């Protein structure tokens, strides 16, 4: 008895289970239903203004899940760990959804004039005279013209997409090559992927910051915050982890994830996500505290737009939704170790992230700043992003089916098959 091993063996087929197709058709159905609702709302409202604003929300959600997945893929190549091995293939599939995110972005690039004040105003002095913009906006638009103009917007975004596409292609190709190589070459592959991912994380944080500034922050041309990119970066970690936990627990209903997803790693992922919940509120509150303390006329209106005129209700709910609730729930060890409950928390967190983006995006526009009011249009925020994310999920499921869901050429595979008490 003393020398028996109790290690499990990897199942023969490592492909994604058949029910992933079911996920795909369900996501497609939800996507179609919500597209119809979105169209109906646009008719009721009589304009597509809010469709486009909600479109940016959907773009930021799918961008976060797709390119954020690429970022977490690079992080786990650098950090190592069994959680990384578990998530590797789902994260690769998330990163391969980049084409869809690009299509979503093209719509934004075509409708710049409706979304961004700086694109709308070509003659600053005329707009100032007619009272369309105020003096502060006029100054900011003129001063930031070299950065905030349609040409730069498009070129910077295209450059970012090219860089993300390069890393997606490289990491996905090497991931497959690694599995077809002999196990004796594992150390070479670990080093190789580390060397690509390390600089990749730095490049990613810079390009992602540029994207967040152009796509969201520039909606209000007068305001700036140096922590903005980091806030989106952490927000991506927040929702990417939530989404990958949902995927791995969903996959664990059948082989091969039933064998490889142990409670220990599920618990670890829960703890990791908890760290992102903390970091997220740390940065969000830090930004608020600094701007509140400074109380400068250049910065504080951005918060006043988002607090006054009933927006105070939204920011209070936002605080509860995306920090208080996940924080108190994830403190519990039992919830982190319970599959069903952890999935519920993760779903909630993805909703909370979208709610936070709503609070960031909508008050940028004159009709909504300091004036939260009902219109059929504002309901687009509940329709368009759901449709866009559902289509994204369907695309993700397609990508997930294209390769085995467990990487085998990795020393962690042996460890993950051992009973849980073997390692500290």
């Amino acid at each position, binding site marked *: *008895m003393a020398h028996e091993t109790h290690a499990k063996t990897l199942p023969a087929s490592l492909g994604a289970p058949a029910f992933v197709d079911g996920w795909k058709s369900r996501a497609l159905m939800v996507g179609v239903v919500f597209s119809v609702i979105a169209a109906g709302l646009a008719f009721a409202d009589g304009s597509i203004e809010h469709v486009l604003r909600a479109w940016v929300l959907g773009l930021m959600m799918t961008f976060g899940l797709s390119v954020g997945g690429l970022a977490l893929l690079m992080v786990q190549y650098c950090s190592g760990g069994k959680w990384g091995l578990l998530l590797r293939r789902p994260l690769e599939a998330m990163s391969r959804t980049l084409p869809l995110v690009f299509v979503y972005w093209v719509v934004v690039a075509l409708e710049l004039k409706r979304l961004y004040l700086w694109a709308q105003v070509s003659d600053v002095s005329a707009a100032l005279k007619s009272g369309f913009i105020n003096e502060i906006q006029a100054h900011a638009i003129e001063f930031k013209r070299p950065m905030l103009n349609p040409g730069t917007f498009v070129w910077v975004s295209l450059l970012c997409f090219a860089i993300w596409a390069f890393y997606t292609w490289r990491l996905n190709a090497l991931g497959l090559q690694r599995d077809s190589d002999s196990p004796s070459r594992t150390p070479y592959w670990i080093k190789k992927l580390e060397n690509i991912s390390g600089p990749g994380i730095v490049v990613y944080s810079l390009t992602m910051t540029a994207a967040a500034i152009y796509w969201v922050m520039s909606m209000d041309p007068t305001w700036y915050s140096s922590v903005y990119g980091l806030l989106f970066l952490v927000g991506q970690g927040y929702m990417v982890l939530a989404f990958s936990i949902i995927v791995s627990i969903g996959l664990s209903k059948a082989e091969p994830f039933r064998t490889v997803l142990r409670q220990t790693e599920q618990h670890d992922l829960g703890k990791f996500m908890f760290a992102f919940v903390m970091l997220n509120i740390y940065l969000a509150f830090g930004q608020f505290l600094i701007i509140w*303390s400074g*109380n400068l006329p250049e910065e504080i209106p951005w918060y006043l737009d988002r607090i006054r005129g009933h927006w105070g209700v939204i920011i209070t709910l936002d605080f509860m939704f995306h920090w208080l609730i996940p924080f108190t729930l994830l403190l519990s060890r039992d919830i982190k170790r319970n599959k069903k409950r952890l999935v519920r928390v993760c779903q909630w967190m993805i909703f909370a992230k979208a709610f936070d983006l709503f609070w960031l995006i909508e008050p940028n526009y004159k009709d909504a700043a300091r004036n939260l009011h009902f219109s059929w249009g504002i309901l687009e925020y509940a329709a368009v992003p759901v449709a866009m994310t559902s289509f994204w999920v369907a695309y993700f499921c397609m990508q997930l089916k294209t390769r085995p869901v467990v990487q085998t050429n990795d020393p962690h595979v042996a460890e993950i098959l051992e*009973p*849980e*008490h073997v390692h*500290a």
Partner: protein
Amino acid sequence: MPPREGTYGLLAEFDTPGDLVRAARQARQDGWRRLDCYTPYPVEEAAEAIGFHRNKVPLVTLVGGLMGLAAMFSLETWISTLAYPLNIGGRPTYSWPAFIVPAYEWTILFAGLSAAFGMLALNGLPALYHPLFNAPNFRDGATTDKFFLCLEALDPKFDLKETKVYLESFQPVSVVEVEY
């Protein structure tokens, strides 16, 4: 109280945590209740195997954390509004956003200290004496690479001869008798 004498229990030594967990699980199933596992690092399955129950440390930590939060927040409120009100850039004296960071730090501090001291208070550490250290293999191995299961003499099922045979059925490295 006069010093206790006689047998504290029988100590079985294992080379791997897997063997320990299986033995502990079996012993618990066979009705043993006065038993304990000793490992060089936390083995959660061993704790589950011998029916480890919930303790009050999380509650102590929560209460400590809330006390820290309340203490610091009310201290700041008292200083800023009653004891020494200052006009800082025209802000109201009760400026709660500025109070959050110290209040948060005190929450962490109090929760951390409550967890540490609550754990010590509830688990009976530091102990000046424990009979298991009379066993030389325990002294040498319990903190490095050995895994121990101890069936204690206080258990009604305990019988020096039968229990030794019972433990040997798990094929441990050794079974030794431990004196008080």
